């Protein structure tokens, strides 16, 4: 995983609450055996019409949303299935962070494992962001802050180890493999 220190971008906004992972990446695209290439199917049913043409009224299809690397979503973003294909699709499309008042557990974990930063903010900040799509914001991982163009700087929760891994591009599997002596000791003492 590449280290992530800051992300500066205009925001793309999907105000819907409960955006589930079936919307983020429909099940029929889960048959891939790699992590790449899912970006073209991100929000497939919302982005494309029945003929495969881009729907002009969908927020991400609008010209001002192109190149945005931060997605603001309504509450309970990423609920539903554990498919890690959801963060893979978001990353492959170009997003590097997701902001909401509530982010579902498994999705949050999966995102962190892939360097997609899940950012939970308070209701007021979320409301401002949803009302101002295209705002230029900056995410600072080391300080766990989100800076808005209003001058406001809000802190977001991020678990210490996850932050460390993001900043240093740490490979969690390597971290676990380094703990093999403790794992073997556990197996012996617990007769597993």
């Amino acid at each position, binding site marked *: 995983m590449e280290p992530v220190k800051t992300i500066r971008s205009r925001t793309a906004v999907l105000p819907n609450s409960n955006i589930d992972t079936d919307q983020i990446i429909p099940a029929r695209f889960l048959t891939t055996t790699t992590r790449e290439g899912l970006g073209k199917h991100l929000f497939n049913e919302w982005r494309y019409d029945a003929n495969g043409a881009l729907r002009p009224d969908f927020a991400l299809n609008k010209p001002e949303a192109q190149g945005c690397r931060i997605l603001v979503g309504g*509450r309970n973003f990423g609920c539903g299935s*554990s498919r*890690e294909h959801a963060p893979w699709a978001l990353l492959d499309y170009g997003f590097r962070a997701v902001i909401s008042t509530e982010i*579902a557990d498994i999705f949050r974990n999966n995102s962190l494992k892939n360097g997609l930063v899940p950012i939970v903010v308070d209701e007021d900040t979320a409301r401002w962001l949803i009302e101002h799509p295209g705002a230029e914001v900056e995410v600072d991982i080391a300080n766990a802050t989100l800076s808005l163009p209003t001058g406001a700087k809000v802190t977001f929760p991020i*678990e210490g180890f996850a932050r460390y891994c993001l900043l240093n591009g740490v490979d969690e599997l390597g*971290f676990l493999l380094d703990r093999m002596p*403790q*794992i073997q000791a*556990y197996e012996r003492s617990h007769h597993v």
Partner: protein
Amino acid sequence: MFEKVWKRHEVVAETADTPAVLFIDLHLIHEVTSPQAFSVLRARGLPVRRTDLTLATMDHSTPTRTEQVFGGAPISVESAAKQVRELEINCAAFGVELLGLRHDQRGIVHVIGPELGATQPGKTVVCGDSHTSTHGALGALAFGIGTTEVGHVLATQCLLQRKPRTLAINVSGVLKRGVTAKDLVLGIIGKIGVSGGTGYVIEFRGETVRSLDMDERMTVCNMSIEAGARAGMVAPDDTTYAYLKGRPRAPHGADWERALESWRALPTDAGAKFDKEVGIDASSLEPMITYGTHPGMVIPITACVPERKGDAIFEKSLAYMGLQAGQPIKDQPVNVVFVGSCTTSRLSDLRSAAGVLRGRKVAKGVQMLVVPGSQQIKKAAEAEGLDRIFIEAGAEWRESGCSMCPGMNGDLVGKGQYSVSTGNRNFEGRQGIGARTLLASPITAAASAVRGRVTDPRELLG
């Protein structure tokens, strides 16, 4: 109980800077979330460390048509066929036990774990699937993980985890006639919301929970994730032990006695504190059915679709479903009925659906699919003649698998069609592009199939 199981599995305890390293007793694998995990192992030259604690099956992409499973007809969905082949190759290469396409113990991963006695009280159980919470019904700490974590467990048999908080859901009262465990969990989600459990492990407690059999407890724990919870658990008791005794992968002989002693120490001590508690009165529940595009949009079957003027997202959901605020949900015409899924495809679920269909016919124009949760359940159902009841009624009796619940194997609901599903998710497009899913219990589903419209099952109960 959660604390006890967590503590027993700490290889390295959590610190301020690092998550805990948790040992995983049972790692279940299926074909959709494993390919990239095996690729990582291959790329790094790592073996599967504990093949003895790993068990694979195939369920999401597998066909349910007999001719495609046993008859040599090709799997019609090419990408599904590819995933099935990929899992076969990976398991053979890494020495992982696979209950493959034609194996007589194959089934939906969250059905076969308990069925085979592999899932046991006090075990940590993980799988690359959110409905892993199902196994919590046996008092296991069971949760869904992503593909990257599947790779971690394959390589080390461990996971990095921060400890979640605990939520007690205390259920009292007797479920009324026609109100099932599925209605209970839909009622719970309706009350606490689809994110009411986020960050928590739920323990389902109380006299009502004690009175549920194992299939019913699995239905309830299965949908913990739909309330956002990490996991859902029911403390083991004599019902659990009777269920497990004699199952092929459960302990036997002296090991059984030892295991029992250890399991009996698991239930939560009196006076233990939970981070949050919620009370549910089961006796006030009616049969439930969803009307919207997430499981929290649920009402009693006797109720009308709610109105939320000015809530654009809510109105968009109703527009997708083609339903009007204020309309009764009862008598909404349906096109497809699906009885199956890891929520409700066990023998007791099939018996209850058959009880409604016995001597009756599926309404003209309705397609009904009955998909047993495992090949063993299929066999047991056939021994009781349940298959004949379904077929004579005009329903289709299929081989086991996830089938129409996630709609990945070609079993799909058509655009604009109304489907009463005993599955766990009614998200937009889940069962097929433009599909309109209404989640309900097996008896509600069967009753709706008979009438061709959403039906209160109590009208058809003998």
